[in-house]
């Protein structure tokens, strides 16, 4: 019976090794979008200024996010429920600084954490949430955001703000100073910011971040100006986990975090320690040359460089039981499932106390000091015996250091009523992945061998992660485990034309790009002597992208617009390298994705009534999908790769914002989408620490499954009052629907249901998709939140003081499941045995900020 669990046997204790990465980024983004979108609602002295500087003479600017009630609501009210505009992830839009794309070339993901906390710099980024013309870059089908980091773009003066919040962090202090363009042609701007929480909203999480920005600009003459800017955000965060409902119920807390535990210090005090820290510092340096060739010709050239360290810590163990409290064998349900009532009671008793349901650091230290071991032939030196306490438990730091350089040059000129833009962009990125020993937890050393291979292979070399230094003794700070570079290079040529014809505005753009990626192994792995070390073959891709759009001005107040794009996209190296940690081995058929998308929009823009209704349709085809999981029986990561995944995203977007009377206005937003898997992909499963192929080209019956983890329906009703004395207040009620668990592909295979006939309940239980928040007895199935915001501005001589407050989830609804995923491990005889991991909307949370400007 136990074998049934291992139909695939995948388990995700290091759950979603890669996915969790994106989860963290997603959270980061949510945090930031909460803040960056705050000013959208500010009707203050500052806002008036802002409106004067924003804007575009192009009518596609009608859709600009800061003016669009739909985009603003999505950013401010929907993001806490993981809403994604059009269901796109961050790889479908492009973030830029001074027109230079900034994203992780390995994965396509945005990297807000590079400049987190610099809200004074980033808040007024030029943002478009969907397909449109783009003066810097072809962009993504999900739009773009460009941060203008030039010193002269910063408002002259000093700005100091303090924010108090109970979200990821508790305190934020920020100070900015900018000279503006001075008569000597120089402009300087600086921002520093610090964010801190001993413990954030979720127990055991912490936040220590510092951020800095400095920019200098020299206006050489009316034609030339030179800019230099540096941004960075050294950050250490203690992360939250996402767990199963049983753990939440046992802990009595839907925000239970399995990542932390108490540690007793030498003086007897007990501190909360989180095993999963994110530590990053990746400064961005950017140099720009703006050249106004003539009244209608402009050349902008930039060089950027970013580098630094990025890592996530995690527990690891050798010759010891899995210590994580929500590991399935530490949960009562496991024992009830095997009719072992006695051990179930033991597990239940453990979970009843805080110490029992959190990590036990003291035990790790104790075990590490009682494990004397003599490693013979240490570090590959025959006869070299190292004796000491060999670590049973460690904290390792899984590093992904980046170094990326970029060069862009964009030439724009106007001929009559035609704006032309031509750009060339080159980027080269090196990701260096390796592990370092973060903390031996009191032991003397760790030996760099693969635990499973030690037992499974006769050849003693096979266990060596670095066969050139066998039996490597690892002390704090040492590199071990895996060590390799992934290089990505991309060259893009971009051309865009915008012109007007009667009541029509048109734009069209073409992008041609060339992408290459390759791996360079720095360790010769004992299991893969032939393909682990040195430079791999280069994988090359050529891609094109075209987009076009038209706006018809019906009456000056009503518009109709259409946009469309067709493109191919190279696979990302993170998915392509199936087992990059150990070897050069890519998915067998690396092919381009094919994407096409279009939208039709109807807009009304009266001074007191603005409305937009949009239908969009996007197909993304032939996507390479990969997930990497820790497998407790193999003591190894297992890589699950799906090829030929197609997605279909389409839906309606509606936003209306109107003035009712005096300062009172109301708005309503509806997002009604359908995001589904649109093909039957094939999957192959590879083990990380051996050449074993667990399965090859399984057909995944995934057609029409919903993409999970985000609401496909969302609606918001808002009221806002703006007082005459520079104050405002508003409230929004938000509802979410159609949130699904993202399906585990392996459950939708012929193999998974091989023993079943159609009438067996397990057949549907295994393959059916779970919708979340379906409690019919609960108000709106619990899937709602209420947010409140208010602000006031004061002018005291030359000082401006703004107070802003926003409160999210005013009713403290703690039962709204905002997302989750099925574990890759399953028992199709009893599908509830390995339940999904789910996350809940935070209860009442607030963000209060005071800003002083002079």
């Amino acid at each position, binding site marked *: *019976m136990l074998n049934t669990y291992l139909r695939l046997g995948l388990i995700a204790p290091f759950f979603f090794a890669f996915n969790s990465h994106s989860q963290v980024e997603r959270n980061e983004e949510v945090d930031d979008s909460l803040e960056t979108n705050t000013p959208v609602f500010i009707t203050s002295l500052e806002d008036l200024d802002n409106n004067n500087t924003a804007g575009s003479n192009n009518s596609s600017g009608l859709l600009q996010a800061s003016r669009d009630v739909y985009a603003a609501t999505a950013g401010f009210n929907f993001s806490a429920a993981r809403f994604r505009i059009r269901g796109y992830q961050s790889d479908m839009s492009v973030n830029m600084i001074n027109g230079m794309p900034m994203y992780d070339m390995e994965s396509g993901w945005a990297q807000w954490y590079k400049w987190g906390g610099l809200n004074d710099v980033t808040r007024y980024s030029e943002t478009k949430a969907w397909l449109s013309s783009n003066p810097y870059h072809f962009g993504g089908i999900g739009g773009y955001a460009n941060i203008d980091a030039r010193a002269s773009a910063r408002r002259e003066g000093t700005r100091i703000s303090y924010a108090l919040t109970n979200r990821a962090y508790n305190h934020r202090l920020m100070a900015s100073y900018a000279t503006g363009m001075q008569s000597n042609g120089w402009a300087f701007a600086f921002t520093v910011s610090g964010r801190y929480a001993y413990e954030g909203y979720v127990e055991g999480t912490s936040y220590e971040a510092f951020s800095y920005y400095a920019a200098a600009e020299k206006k050489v003459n009316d034609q030339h100006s030179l800019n230099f800017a540096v941004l960075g955000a050294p950050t250490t965060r203690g992360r939250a986990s996402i767990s199963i409902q049983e753990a939440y119920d046992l802990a009595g807390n839907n925000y239970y975090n399995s990542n932390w535990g108490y540690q007793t210090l030498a003086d007897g005090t007990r501190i909360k320690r989180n095993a999963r820290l994110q530590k990053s510092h990746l400064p961005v340096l950017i140099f720009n040359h703006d050249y106004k060739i003539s009244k209608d010709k402009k050349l902008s050239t930039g060089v950027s460089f970013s580098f630094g360290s990025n890592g996530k810590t995690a527990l690891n163990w050798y010759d010891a039981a899995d210590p994580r409290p929500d590991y399935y064998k530490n949960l009562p349900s496991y024992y009830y499932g095997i009719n072992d009532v006695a051990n179930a009671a033991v597990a239940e008793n453990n979970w009843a106390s805080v110490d029992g349901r959190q990590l036990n650091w003291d035990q790790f230290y104790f075990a590490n000091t009682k494990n004397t071991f003599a490693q013979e032939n240490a570090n590959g030196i025959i006869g070299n015996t190292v004796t000491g306490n060999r670590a049973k438990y460690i904290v390792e730091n899984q590093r992904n250091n980046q170094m990326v350089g970029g060069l862009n040059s964009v030439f724009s000129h106007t001929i009559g009523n035609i704006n032309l833009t031509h750009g060339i962009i080159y980027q080269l990125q090196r990701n260096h992945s390796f592990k370092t020993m973060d903390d031996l937890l009191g032991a003397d050393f760790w030996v760099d061998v693969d635990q499973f291979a030690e037992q499974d292979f006769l050849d003693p070399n096979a266990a060596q992660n670095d066969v050139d230094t066998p039996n490597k003794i690892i002390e704090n700070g040492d590199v071990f485990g895996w060590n390799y570079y992934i290089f990505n290079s991309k060259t893009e040529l971009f051309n865009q034309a915008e012109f007007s014809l009667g009541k029509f505005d048109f734009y069209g753009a073409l992008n041609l790009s060339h992408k290459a990626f390759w791996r360079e192994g720095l360790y010769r792995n004992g299991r893969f002597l032939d393909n682990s070390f040195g430079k791999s073959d280069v994988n090359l891709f050529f891609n094109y992208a075209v987009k076009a759009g038209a706006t018809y001005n019906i009456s000056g107040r009503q518009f109709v617009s259409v946009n469309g794009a067709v493109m191919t996209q190279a696979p990302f190296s993170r998915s392509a390298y199936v087992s990059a940690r150990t070897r050069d081995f890519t998915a067998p058929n690396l092919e381009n994705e094919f994407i096409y998308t279009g939208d039709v929009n109807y807009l009304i823009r009266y001074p007191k009534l603005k409305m937009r209704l949009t239908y969009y349709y996007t197909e993304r085809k032939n996507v390479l999908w990969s997930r990497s999981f820790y497998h407790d029986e193999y003591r190894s990561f297992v890589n699950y790769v799906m090829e030929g995944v197609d997605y279909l995203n389409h839906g309606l977007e509606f936003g209306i914002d109107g003035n009712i009377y005096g300062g009172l206005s109301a708005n309503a937003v509806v997002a009604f989408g359908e995001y589904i898997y649109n093909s039957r992909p094939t999957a192959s499963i590879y083990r990380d620490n051996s050449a074993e192929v667990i399965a090859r080209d399984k057909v995944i019956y*995934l057609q029409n499954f919903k993409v999970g983890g985000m609401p496909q329906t969302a609606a918001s009703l808002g009221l806002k009052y703006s007082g005459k004395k520079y104050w405002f207040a508003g409230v929004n009620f938000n509802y979410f629907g159609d949130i699904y668990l993202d399906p585990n592909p392996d459950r939708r295979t012929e193999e998974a249901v091989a023993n079943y006939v159609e009438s067996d309940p397990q057949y549907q239980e295994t393959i059916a998709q779970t919708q979340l928040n379906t409690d019919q007895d609960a108000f709106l199935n619990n899937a709602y939140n209420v947010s409140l915001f208010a602000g006031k501005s004061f002018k005291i001589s030359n000082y401006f003081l703004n107070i802003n407050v926003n409160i999210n989830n005013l009713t403290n609804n703690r039962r709204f499941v905002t997302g989750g995923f099925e574990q890759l491990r399953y028992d199709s*005889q009893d599908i509830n045995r390995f339940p999904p991991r789910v996350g809940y909307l935070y209860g009442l949370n607030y963000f209060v900020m005071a800003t002083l400007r002079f």
Partner: protein
Amino acid sequence: MRKLKFQYLFLVGAVAALAWSCNKELDQPPVSQLHDSDVTTIDSLRSQYYSTTTPFIIEDSLLSIYVTVTMDEVEGNIYKNLYVQDATGPANIRLTSSSDYKVGDSLRISLFGVEISDYNGVFQINNVDPDKNIVKQASGKEILPTPMSFAHISAADEGKLIIIENVQFTYDQLGNTYADAITQSSENRYLEDCEGNSLYIRTSGFADFAGTELPSGNGSITCIVSVFGSDIQLLVRSESEVNMSGARCPGQLVVKDFEDNSMTSGGWSVVQVTGTDTWETGSFGGSVLTVISNYDGSTNNACESWLISPSLDLSNSTGSTLSFMNTQRYGGDDLEVLISTDYTGTGDPNGATWNALPATLDTDGSSWDLVPSGLVDLSGYLVANVHIAFKYTGTDSDGKTWELDDIIITG
């Protein structure tokens, strides 16, 4: 007007596009359909097997039976097998490995590759892989046991889940455990009903309740009927289904086991007619019994000593029996087992009328092993004042040693 039309057209078109796309059916991996012809019954398999009594293997990949578990492995009395029933009858399922299925689970058992046979008379579906052949359909569908009585249980009931009311463990079993939990060996324990019918339960030494002492009262037992060759064995699923806390059979008027070291408790009396050697209690092998001998270590002495029961009222009885355990050694007169309907209860019993009862007495003079008397029928004496007596007679030249225990008179 033109603008408005466009507006509506657009809205209608967009909603239509979305409506068209919604409610798309989720993909499904291919799966077999089970038709009526693919479902068989236990009775059909049973008849097929017993028509030739030749084991056979099923090669039809879809053929299935739908059954409900009537006995599981949870309490350990059976291992790597299950008892199940469908509407047509019961079967024993022999598994290739232990399973977590529980009583009340409704299962589809795919018969592909399994063997249909019997094991010492137990009809079995053999070689069933719990992971591959068994698919649980539901749980909590417990089948109620069929009420039955000892008199009616036969080998034809093999596999059935039954409940028997008003039964008790035989007196000689009391104090024992269900099985030997220490050496983990199986034991047979006899049950009887008030009519004197008896069968035994067989319990594995691995059962969770193997070390539990048998209940001493009377009540009901839920069990599975099993067979071993020509023997009928009952299998207890759980100790909680042995509910014997009631009074033992109402007709069982007298039990004299001497465990209280008293000759006269319960109204018994000893009447000495001749000599001084008399009935006394004695302890042998942990059990207390009564013993009499006219040998004083060097010589025999003339002796007549009566062990007499209290007055028994058998007038409401429909049938009465006597049973006891006995053993003897040495030369001399046999013990007399007597019954009287006119003894006054005191005084010399020789003044009353006594008839001999046909009890089985020990004939093996070389051992002290107690032997059962057999059920001695007292149905000829169903009146108000009945006494039973054990009369010992010895002479100056010889005399046996008699031991008696567990005298039970039922009514």
